[in-house]
């Protein structure tokens, strides 16, 4: 037995890179993910999360760097990797034109289960994921949460050693989101390594023992959720004003009371690092005293925006820019194909 297969790491990536035309989607990503852990990759849309996951799941060839997944090289031993991992992509990776039961039976057959076993396994998973009532309905008629659950269960027809989850809760209501989180926790308890891409710090905080923050195709910070939050400040006071014109005044007050204030992309909102409820209340009272009209305020965990602000000095890309990048990327892909 070589040391590679006994490696304590489920994923080791060094300098992983991939371009689409001129867009450098992933620009030298290093990752080290321990076997049996849940590892979060945190970043805004277009940061390179999906491209990274697609390379690690052997769907996309890297054009720089290398990676081993469960001891196997993702390029030269792609087939071995495929036998050990499963992927739940950002687009629902189930067939909308089939029923839930048919989807799971198909996957079971493709993974080598005998016909009867594949059918049995499909029923078992549908029961476990609360989908038995919908088993004979076409997936296109499923709700978002049901589709997600089916998608995840399709990755578990044969229990994988490593599972890639790309934004598993984006677009879900809180109830469905909690359900997906429970499923991920149960999976982790069973010993499956999970690589979780997410836009939500809270999600990574809830589930992951290690987090890499990724921006513009690079890892810009790495550590435990605690380390990350400590570097960002463990909490934040978000204030929304009635009148955006009063924001400079509010900024001055908050900077004086709490040490710092950041302007958000919403022209009426601003944020200060603060973990102490009493100090936050004092600061809000001070705003009122100085004549600033506050529409609402909350004390909570730092948002991805704030993490980015703290780590990079700039907020996460605003959506318009992202969309431009996505489009640029798509055009580049198409050009690549027609070339």
């Amino acid at each position, binding site marked *: 037995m070589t040391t590679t297969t006994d490696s304590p790491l489920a994923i080791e990536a060094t300098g992983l890179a991939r371009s*689409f035309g001129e867009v450098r989607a992933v620009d030298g990503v290093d990752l080290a993910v321990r076997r049996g852990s849940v590892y979060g990759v945190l970043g805004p849309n277009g940061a390179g999360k999906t491209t990274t996951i697609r390379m690690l*799941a*052997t*769907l*996309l060839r890297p054009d720089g760097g290398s990676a081993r997944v469960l001891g196997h090289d993702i390029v030269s031993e792609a087939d071995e990797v*495929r*036998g050990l991992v499963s*992927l739940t*992509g*950002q*687009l629902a*990776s*189930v*067939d*909308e*034109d*089939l029923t839930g039961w*048919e989807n799971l039976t*198909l*996957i079971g*057959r*493709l*993974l*080598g*289960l*005998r016909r009867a076993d594949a059918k049995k*396994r499909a029923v*078992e*998973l549908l*029961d*476990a*994921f*609360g989908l*038995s*009532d919908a088993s004979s309905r*076409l997936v296109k008629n499923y709700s978002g*949460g049901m589709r997600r*659950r089916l998608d995840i269960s*399709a990755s*578990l027809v044969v*229990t994988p050693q490593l599972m890639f989850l790309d934004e598993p809760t984006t677009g879900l209501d809180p*109830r469905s989101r*909690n*359900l997906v989180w*429970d*499923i991920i926790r*149960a999976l982790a308890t*069973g010993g*499956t390594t999970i690589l979780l891409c997410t836009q939500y710090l809270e999600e990574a905080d*809830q589930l992951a023992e290690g987090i890499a923050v990724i921006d513009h195709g690079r890892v810009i910070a790495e550590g435990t959720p605690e380390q990350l939050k400590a570097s960002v400040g*463990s*909490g934040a006071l978000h204030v929304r004003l009635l009148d955006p014109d009063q924001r400079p005044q509010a900024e001055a007050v908050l900077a004086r009371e709490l040490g710092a204030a950041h302007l958000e992309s919403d022209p009426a909102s601003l944020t200060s690092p603060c973990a102490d409820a009493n100090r936050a209340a004092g600061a809000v009272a001070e705003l009122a005293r100085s004549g600033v009209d506050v529409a609402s305020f909350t*004390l*909570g*965990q730092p948002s991805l925006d704030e993490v980015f602000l703290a780590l990079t000095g700039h907020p996460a890309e605003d959506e318009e820019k992202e969309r431009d990048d996505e489009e640029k990327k798509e055009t580049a*892909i*198409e050009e*690549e*194909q*027609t070339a």
Partner: protein
Amino acid sequence: MSTSPTTTAVSADGVEAKALRDALSSTPRPERAGALSAALAFGWRGMLKVKHVPEQLLDVTITPVMFLLMFTYLFGGAIAGSTGEYLDYILPGLLVMSVLFTTVYSGIALNTDLTKGVVDRFRSLPIWRPAPLVGALLGDSVRYMVAGTVIVALGLALGFRPSAGPAGVIAAMALVTVFAFGLSWVFTTMGLLMRSPNAVMNAGFMSIFPLTFLSNVFVEPETLPGALEAFVDVNPISILATASRGLMEGNAAGGDIAIVLATAAALTAVFGPLTTHLYRTRS
């Protein structure tokens, strides 16, 4: 220190923690699926889609009926002197045309499939690489046979009487289906190279239309100008039509059948691996 709301382990939507744990722990990894069983599973997927949306068989049933009625009654008298005589000539040819037109849909279906996330899952499975494509085409072969059966059944109803009997008809349909399987790889390649299902449809029909009409499907090549006649004579679709006529009449030339089979094999050998490669690498 502000804490985020903790999620409870209470079951929601009927999901129970214990059932979940049991389901997650009960699967030993089986032996990998063989090439054939993976392809057949994909063929089953194709059949299921037809089962859920049977209307999609309309194109392979209505179009051949339309062509047969139109050509027999509209052009039959003018081309062959009588509709009955023309039916004998054109029916095997229309069988070829109807089935070959259907192959374009294989490319359109593949292109449509690519826009969906499920392809990512298929590509990340440890299966024989061409399985999704071979399986889809095996499923499509059933569509080809439906198209063929419709045209032959209607022909029989209109008075077509092949001298080689049922065996000849079945042999002709089998030959056409084998050729269609080979040709459909060309359209699946197109399906992977083009950006939209519409583009595949346009390019597909723009190539299959002239190829079919510049053959002996509708007219005897002797009536054509020399250069055109030369092209028509070597057009594989002419050879396929001639072989099908021969099989139905009981006087097929072994050489024609061999050329048809060799062409199908060559198309598969070139475009099969090309399609597989594109399917794996398209991002």
